[in-house]
């Protein structure tokens, strides 16, 4: 049973560029959440997708956007990258109506 997978593993971008991160949920899961984890901090909730709609959003600017596909996989897009966007981006999947979220290994984004 494949767990949550994310790609790419690492990414280096420069300020002002745009980035797209990808996530495939655990088998049987239909809900995907994205979190940002800065070094030495706990993950911060960005947003959650269910039935291809953004259901919840944390305190992140509109530069952060997402998408969920019919196969439940998801993308996180960040525009106009800032140095402060450097972090580990985590995807978590769950089954609608349950609270247990399972995390992927993350994508480490470095903005220079």
């Amino acid at each position: 049973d494949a767990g949550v997978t994310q790609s790419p593993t690492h990414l280096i971008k420069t300020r002002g560029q745009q980035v797209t991160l990808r996530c495939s949920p655990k088998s049987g899961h239909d809900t995907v959440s994205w979190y940002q984890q800065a070094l030495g901090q706990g993950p911060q909730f960005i947003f959650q997708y269910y039935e291809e709609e953004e259901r919840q959003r944390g305190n992140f600017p509109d530069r952060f956007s997402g998408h969920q596909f019919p196969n439940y996989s998801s993308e996180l897009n960040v525009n106009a990258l800032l140095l402060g966007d450097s972090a580990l981006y985590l995807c978590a999947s769950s089954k609608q109506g349950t609270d247990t979220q399972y995390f992927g290994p993350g994508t480490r984004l470095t903005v220079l």
Partner: protein
Amino acid sequence: QKEVEQDPGPLSVPEGAIVSLNCTYSNSAFQYFMWYRQYSRKGPELLMYTYSSGNKEDGRFTAQVDKSSKYISLFIRDSQPSDSATYLCAFCSNDYKLSFGAGTTVTVRA
């Protein structure tokens, strides 16, 4: 006041010791309480999940919740070097988003 406060650590203990980790929270809407373990440069792994006050045991791990005091703890008995990791407390209300503590890094010395 932060919504979640976690004892910052770091903690360094000898192998076989009991590790005690603590978090407090201020949001009364939190109904679900979790502990995640995160190894260096990896994603968080769910360790314990509970929704009621009291103790829940799973092997060497015990999660304790006190809703009246808004306080949760994780105890690791007979700690092993493989337990060396960052431990994150997490909370959830009915909105299905997790709120995390900042994490406590634990090192178990062989």
